[in-house]
Structure formats: structure tokens, C-alpha cells
């Protein structure tokens, strides 16, 4: 309880509140701009948070991402371009509603259910995280090895694209992580005599490069393609939302629950939660034929799911130090920078920070209502910011941001090189998120793998001897088996017609 009071004091400091409001506005803007993702918002924020105290730093990230995930719904409805990938699942549905003249209702539902879904996610984060942390305190290197591996496995299993390319991307990320001093023996690896490579591939510039620069490169070649805002007056967006809630309360609960479950899985984030819950909504709907014609039901499920997933992704991040999605992957980097090593011990050593995160989450979701309303009202102006002005400024931001992380041109160089690699990967169908997870989890995986190998003296069976490690190991192996089977079946299916 003391920790809670301390945390409340930390959060309610006027400076922190100012940071929260400012990053909320930033998140709204980035989320609403097509082509700029919530992950990019976080990546751009990190260099700024680097210079803050832990609580405002976490506050900035939590608020900006929560807003961005909601704000992505606005251009989805008005332009048929999702502002962030998390809104892609129901973009067509939203746009169809707008064309039917139900833009107000659609945006109102998006806003209210995002807030409610976010609240459910936070509630479960508050309940689950400490309980899990208690169990996690007894974990040894074997459990952590399996957890990290399971996390990485889920990341691939959940990618919507090609699993083989997901695996490749992941291993590539793990390999990049091998550059630098190795964690067990302290021997420099793949540094080619360079002093700067000794510190390894700095994680934040890598992230800015892969997520933001590659996006800017795509934007640069299509800068003249104009966005046409659907000309429609926005009236009272809250009109009719209550009756939607009364009619579709079960969809809301189901979407939020699914969001939490998927968000808490390492590697699967808000966008996957939205896709799956939209699909489930359609599958179990009493009126599946209405889907695609501008029907609110699936939107209720999916818009609740993506916001609840966002909070739930913090569960594995805080408890085990394993990122739930690409955003929490960045958060883990920030936690390390702030000296709060994510993992169960953070609940013992810095409980006030954990409570602060909880409080900020609740605040961010409450703040979403008025700010979201304002964003919707001013959406036409936001969406009119010309991209030919925006792209160069964001480029400069990326440049300064990655410079700030190393205080040298080395950071900019990492960003440039990994930005090009990230762009090439996306062009060729290799997803970027697994590579980033590999880069984040690589050290934890290697350290625990090496420690366990030395403890077990190379005997693989020891990896299964402790009860929790055994269960985690079996699950991991089972998921791998399922993936291979799915890959095999998929191959047969594609070969069948020829």
C-alpha cells in the first residue's frame, strides 16, 4: 500500500501530468497519420524519454501508444487507410459504415469501446502481473530459457504471413544480437576490430531504422498520392453508442478477453488481436451476412480487442522481461536504460514504478475519451497535414533520435544500415517484428541457454527436469511440432492444384 501511495504521488506530479498530456496529443497525431504506426510513435519517443525520470518516461510511452492504437481508427473510417496496422482488420467495415452515413456512430463506438477495452486490459494487468511475478521469482535459467524460446516461437506462430520467413527473420535478429561482447565469456564477436561494434548493435537506433526509416522510404516513393477525406460533417459521436453497448455487450467482453489473451502472448500484439477477434466475431455472429456491408458488430469486437491487447502485452514484459509485442520490446529497452531490469524482481525492488505504470494506464484510458473526441472533431485538419512536409521532418527526427542514443554518428549509421535491411526485408515478405524480438530477447536467450548448458553439462534432458521448465519445454516443442505440421500441410495445399 505504501508503494501505491508513493506511485500515486509520482504520477500526480504536474510535470508528469504535462508529459502525459503532451504524449497523448503526440500519440493521437502519429496514430491518425496513415503510414505512421504506434510502434513508430514509441520508437520516436524513446530518445526523448531517455532523458526523463522513469515515471514520466513510462507515462509518455504508455499514453502515446494507447492513443495511437485508437487514433488509427479515424483515417480507417474516413479514408479507408488504417492509421496503424491494429486498425487494418476492420478498415473496410468502418469505411462501409461511413459510406452509409454512419461515420458518427462508427467513430463513437471506436472511441468508447477502445476506452472500455483498454480498461479491461489494465484490470487484468493489475491482477495478473503480481501473481505471475510471485511464481516467476523461483524461476531458474532453464525456465527463462524456455520462456524466451516460447516467446520467440509464439512470435512466429502468430505472424499472419509466411512462417518460414518469420523464422528466418527471427534468427536473423538473434544473429545481429551476437555482434559485440558475448554475454558469458566476454569475448568480442564479429566486431572486425571496430571499437564501436564492441558495444553491440544499439537497440533503439536499430528499431528506429527498421520501423521508421523503412516506412519513410516507402512513403517517399508515394508522396504525391493524395488522401481524399470523406466529406462528411461530424456530429454527436456518442449518439447511439449506448444502445450498441446494450446490444453487443457480449461481443465487447469477448473481444476484450481475446485481446488480453493474445496480447499477453509474447510476440503477438494489438494488430493480431484485432484480426483474430474480428474473424471470431464473424464466425459466431447471428448475422454473418451483414459483415462487409458496414455492420458494427465486428468493429465492437476488434476495436475492444486491440486496446485491451495493448495493456496485456505489458504482462510478460513486466513479469518475465519478455516483450508481448514490438511496442513492449521497446519498453523493455527503456526499462533497462532506467535501471529497472524487467523481471519478477522489479516487483520487489521497484514496486512503486509498477504501480505507477498501472495508474498511468488508467489515466491514459480516461484521457482517451476527451482527447479522442477532440481528435475526431479535428480529424479533417490532422489528415490534411501534407505528407511532403511531414516525411522530411520525421526523417530529421529519426536522425536526431538515433544520434541521441549513442551521442555519436554510430547511432545514425546503425539506423541507416538497418533501415535499408528492414526495407529490403519487408519488400521480400520477411516480417520485421520477429527480427526486433530476436534483437531484444537474444541476450536473455543466449545467457540462459549457455548457463543451462553449462549446468546440465550438455545433457538436453536436464532442460525438462524441473516441473515448470518441463511444462514450458513440452509446450514449446509442441508448438514447434504444430508449426512444422502446419507448414507441411500448407505445402501440400499449395502443391495440390498443380
Amino acid at each position: 500500500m505504501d508503494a501505491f501511495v508513493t506511485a500515486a504521488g509520482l504520477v500526480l506530479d504536474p510535470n508528469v501530468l504535462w508529459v502525459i498530456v503532451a504524449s497523448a496529443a503526440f500519440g493521437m497525431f502519429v496514430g491518425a497519420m496513415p503510414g505512421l504506426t504506434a510502434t513508430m510513435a514509441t520508437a520516436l519517443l524513446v530518445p526523448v524519454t531517455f532523458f526523463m525520470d522513469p515515471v514520466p518516461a513510462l507515462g509518455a510511452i504508455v499514453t502515446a501508444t494507447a492513443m495511437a492504437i485508437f487514433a488509427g481508427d479515424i483515417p480507417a473510417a474516413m479514408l479507408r487507410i488504417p492509421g496503424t496496422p491494429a486498425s487494418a482488420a476492420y478498415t473496410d467495415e468502418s469505411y462501409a459504415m461511413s459510406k452509409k452515413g454512419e461515420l458518427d456512430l462508427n467513430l463513437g463506438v471506436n472511441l468508447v469501446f477502445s476506452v472500455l477495452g483498454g480498461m479491461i486490459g489494465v484490470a487484468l494487468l493489475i491482477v495478473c502481473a503480481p501473481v505471475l511475478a510471485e511464481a516467476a521469482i523461483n524461476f531458474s535459467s532453464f525456465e527463462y530459457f524456455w520462456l524466451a524460446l516460447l516467446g520467440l516461437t509464439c512470435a512466429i506462430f502468430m505472424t499472419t504471413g509466411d512462417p518460414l520467413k518469420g523464422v528466418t527473420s527471427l534468427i536473423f535478429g538473434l544473429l545481429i544480437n551476437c555482434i559485440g561482447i558475448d554475454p558469458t565469456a566476454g569475448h568480442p564477436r564479429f566486431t572486425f576490430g571496430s571499437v564501436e561494434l564492441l558495444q553491440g548493435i544499439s537497440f533503439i537506433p536499430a528499431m528506429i531504422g527498421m520501423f521508421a526509416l523503412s516506412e519513410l522510404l516507402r512513403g517517399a516513393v508515394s508522396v504525391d498520392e493524395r488522401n481524399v477525406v470523406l466529406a462528411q460533417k461530424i456530429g454527436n459521436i456518442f449518439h447511439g453508442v449506448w444502445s450498441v453497448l446494450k446490444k453487443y455487450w457480449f461481443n465487447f467482453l469477448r473481444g476484450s478477453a481475446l485481446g488480453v489473451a493474445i496480447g499477453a502472448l509474447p510476440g503477438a500484439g494489438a494488430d493480431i488481436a484485432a484480426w483474430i477477434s474480428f474473424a471470431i466475431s464473424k464466425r459466431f455472429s447471428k448475422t454473418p451476412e451483414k459483415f462487409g456491408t458496414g455492420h458494427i458488430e465486428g468493429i465492437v469486437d476488434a476495436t475492444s480487442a486491440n486496446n485491451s491487447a495493448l495493456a496485456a502485452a505489458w504482462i510478460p514484459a513486466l513479469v518475465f522481461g519478455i516483450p508481448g509485442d514490438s511496442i513492449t520490446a521497446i519498453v523493455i529497452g527503456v526499462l533497462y536504460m532506467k535501471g529497472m531490469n524487467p523481471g519478477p524482481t522489479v516487483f520487489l525492488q521497484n514496486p512503486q514504478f509498477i504501480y505507477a505504470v498501472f495508474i498511468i494506464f488508467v489515466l491514459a484510458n480516461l484521457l482517451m475519451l476527451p482527447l479522442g473526441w477532440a481528435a475526431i472533431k479535428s480529424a479533417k485538419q490532422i489528415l490534411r497535414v501534407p505528407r511532403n512536409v511531414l516525411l522530411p521532418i520525421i526523417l530529421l527526427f529519426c536522425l536526431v533520435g538515433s544520434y541521441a542514443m549513442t551521442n555519436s554518428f554510430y547511432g545514425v549509421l546503425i539506423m541507416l544500415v538497418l533501415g535499408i535491411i528492414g526495407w529490403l526485408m519487408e519488400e521480400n515478405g520477411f516480417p520485421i517484428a520477429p527480427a526486433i524480438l530476436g534483437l531484444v530477447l537474444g541476450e536473455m536467450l543466449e545467457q540462459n541457454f549457455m548457463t543451462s548448458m553449462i549446468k546440465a553439462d550438455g545433457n538436453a534432458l536436464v532442460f525438462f527436469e524441473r516441473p515448470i521448465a518441463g511444462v514450458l519445454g513440452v509446450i514449446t516443442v509442441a508448438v514447434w511440432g504444430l508449426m512444422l505440421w502446419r507448414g507441411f500441410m500448407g505445402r501440400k495445399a499449395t502443391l495440390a492444384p498443380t
Partner: protein
Amino acid sequence: MRANDAINGLILILLSVAMIAMTSTFPAFPGQPYGPSLFPRVLGTLLIMCGVLLVWRGLAARRSGAGWVEMAPWTRQPWRVVSFFLMLGSLLLYILVGDAIGFIPVAIVILLALFLWFGVRPLSAVVTAVVATFAIHWFFATLLRVPLPRGVLDAIL
């Protein structure tokens, strides 16, 4: 630029082989069979397996008519290609001359060049470039104390 998976796979295999070859120079743990080379070797082997599967798939796609390298439509419009390389070139310019000339002049030049190339009207391009540069400089260098290179403006700042 979309390359056939056979090419992607081949690149990965070559990369992994080179990497595994490099691990042979790593020292062993005294009295311990698992040293710094173990993890990269495991990863390298896995990546080679992925590479082989990609090559196999790429060759199958090739047989059914897919090309080796497929360029995106924008690559046929020269000015879009220039846009692409201007973005990368700006970063390279900053890395190369940023230290000597300093953040403010280089950033203004980069922004101005990109704005004009992307068709922003000259007057607003100049104003936006100057305002954005000073705003970002103020935010990072003054507020957050990032030691952005001062270059030629060292005496003034």
C-alpha cells in the same frame, strides 16, 4: 525490389557460412566445451536450414514462371527513384559532414532539399526548414542536452 526466394536463401546461406567460419577463431572456455562460438553456430546452422528451404521454394516458383528479380512499379519512374535515394543520401550526408559543418546548417540543407524536391512551395519550404531545424535543435540540444555537433557555428552557439 523483390528477389526470388532462391536468391534470398542463397544470401542467407553465404552469410551463415561466413559467420560460422569466423567463430572458429573464438577461444574456448577453459575446461568447458561450450564457449562464445556455440550460440552463433547453432543460429548459423538454423539459418542455413531456412536458407535451403527458401532456395528450394524459390526454384519451384521459378519453374512455375516467377522471375529472378521483380522491381516495384515505382522504380520505373526516375523521379521516385531519386526521392528514395534522396532520403538515404540525406542521412549519409549528415554522417559524413555533420561533425565538421554542424547540425543546424546540415539539417536546414537536408530539409530544404527534400521539401523542394517533394514540391513544397519555395517560401514555405524555407520557413518550415528553418523553423523545424531550430525547434528540433532547441528540443534535443537545449532541453535534452544531446551534444549535437556544432560545427562551424561553434563560436556562436
